[in-house]
């Protein structure tokens, strides 16, 4: 480090190191796009090249969509993640409001149970919940994918902490206007809590769009497959033969979230790191 130019040297070193790291982080994404753009003959060549001699992205995509009903799987992903999020909000918000703003016998116990529930990893309850759904005849259905996640103790905790910061005057004013307690939840608290609900929504949608464990356990039917399950099946059925279409399928599956992330990265990072508390 020369004393005459300490800043440029350090700045350059910083960029060199960060770019080297970034290359490693991005390598799978770049290789995925590169492979998805190559024809079969170029993929199975031991000579490495990033940019295809002949672009075959369109064929690979066409083949991916022909071999697997990707649109249906994406739609399943949307149906499942949106249903889970909407139900989570419908269940969690009223409870969070009651825990934050109302007095009732058992409130402390309930809140303690919520805090305890946050500690339980999702894999821990898999066997009994599976048996429960089996008994209820609900396995292999959208219900099996959605119902176990309608309760988000983490969502209740998060919203309760947020509602605590909403001034009581706002709630009292709404009561003076004759709004019922139910009305207050949806017409006063929800609008006030939009930032927190958004962050929770991102957290919830990302977690369930990417979830593999639960759909793997409860699903059998092809038409119900969620995106991660679809990629895994695609990979198993092609068994190392058509990497081009497989990479194209992987691209399609990660695209919705990655694109949304690139457009609103600050919100996404905020939403996903909520799990830091979890």
């Amino acid at each position, binding site marked *: 480090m020369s004393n005459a130019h300490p800043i440029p040297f*350090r*700045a350059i070193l*910083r*960029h060199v190191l*960060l770019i080297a*790291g970034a290359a490693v*982080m*991005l*390598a*799978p994404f770049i*290789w*995925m796009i590169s492979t998805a753009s190559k024809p079969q003959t170029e*993929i199975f*060549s*031991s000579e490495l090249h990033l940019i295809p001699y002949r672009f075959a992205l369109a064929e690979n995509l066409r083949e991916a969509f022909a071999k697997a009903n990707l649109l249906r799987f994406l739609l399943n992903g949307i149906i499942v993640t949106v249903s889970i999020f909407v139900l989570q909000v419908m269940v*969690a918000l*009223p*409870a969070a*409001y*009651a825990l934050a703003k109302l*007095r*009732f016998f058992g*409130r402390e116990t*309930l809140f303690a*149970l919520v805090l305890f*529930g946050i*500690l*339980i*990893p999702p*894999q821990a*309850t*898999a*066997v*009994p919940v599976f048996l429960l759904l089996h008994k209820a005849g609900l396995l292999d259905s959208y219900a099996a994918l959605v119902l*176990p996640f309608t*309760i988000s103790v983490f969502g209740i905790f998060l919203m309760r902490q947020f509602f605590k910061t909403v001034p009581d005057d706002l709630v009292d004013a709404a009561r003076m206007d004759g709004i019922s*307690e*139910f009305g207050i939840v949806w017409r006063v608290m929800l609008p006030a809590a939009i930032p927190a609900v958004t962050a929770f929504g991102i957290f919830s949608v990302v977690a369930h769009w*990417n979830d*593999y*464990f639960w759909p793997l*356990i409860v699903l059998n039917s092809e038409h119900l497959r969620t995106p*991660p*399950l679809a*990629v*895994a099946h695609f*990979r198993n059925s092609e068994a190392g033969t058509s*990497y081009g279409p497989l990479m194209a399928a*992987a691209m399609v*599956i*990660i695209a919705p*979230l990655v694109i949304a992330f*690139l457009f609103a*990265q600050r919100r996404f*990072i*905020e939403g*996903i*790191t909520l799990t*830091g*508390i979890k």
Partner: protein
Amino acid sequence: MTIGATVAPAGATRRAVPAHGSRRTYAAYALVTPAAALMVIMLLGPLAGVIALSFSDYQLGAPHFSWIGLANYQDLFADKVFWTALRNTLTYVVIVVPGAVIAGLAIALLIQSGTSLRSLYRTIYFLPVMATLIAMAVVWEFMLHPQFGLVNGLLRGAGLPAFAWLQDRSTALYALCAIGIWQAVGFNMVLFLAGLVSIPKQLYEAAEIDGASSGWARFRLVTWPMLGPVTTFVVVISGIRSFQVFDTVHVLTKGGPSKSTEVLIHTMYTEGFEFFRSGYAAAITVVFLVFVLALTLIKSRLADRGVHYT
């Protein structure tokens, strides 16, 4: 006089509050009932259920079952596969946690040490956290392809020996660890960035006045001690997440070759959802739960001290 004056309003409010209060109390119960019921059905009940099941020989589809005490645990502790799975899981945790924590910290420090391109770097390093792990695992599998993969291609180009990463029992677990680190780094980086931002600037100025002129001295005297709580927090979270490793194992190796990547949750999945030995799977779950809850208790201890960095 004074007593009467204070009693009267108190009595008035006492009369007023129950009228409002009881209506509001009913509302409160109505508001929490769906959440409380679902919590019992989907979370607390199943948690008690998994413990109860672990003392039974329940099998899905079997006509009857009986309570067998600790027999599942005895079988488990006598099973070589279980010990292999436990050892592999611990190896995975012991590699991925330091790897992802140190790399996350290093990247956060590098990003924070300058002002240009901060958000671009943050976005790039965070990308793997966002992308569906199953899809990226399939990409990694192709990158690790013995013949046509990028990794071996680069190694050969550099004149180094190539490996059949995921098909070789001596490398498969480490390959999965590398994918695990790659995926977790960005998450840790963001937590460290939040921690770094909250360190008061004056501390660095004070350290400089006291003669801490080199970057290393400032890191050792200010950054590292100030990041202590965040670091512990990140270590524990990474530990919990690593313990849950399943996706990459299931899609890439199925625990193989020859059980070299068998991990706890994968064993639990196989027993519980492929062989439908629910009781036995429940016992594995309980062992898993003991480890995770031990880590979680450390974390909630920290949370109680008011350490929240998000």
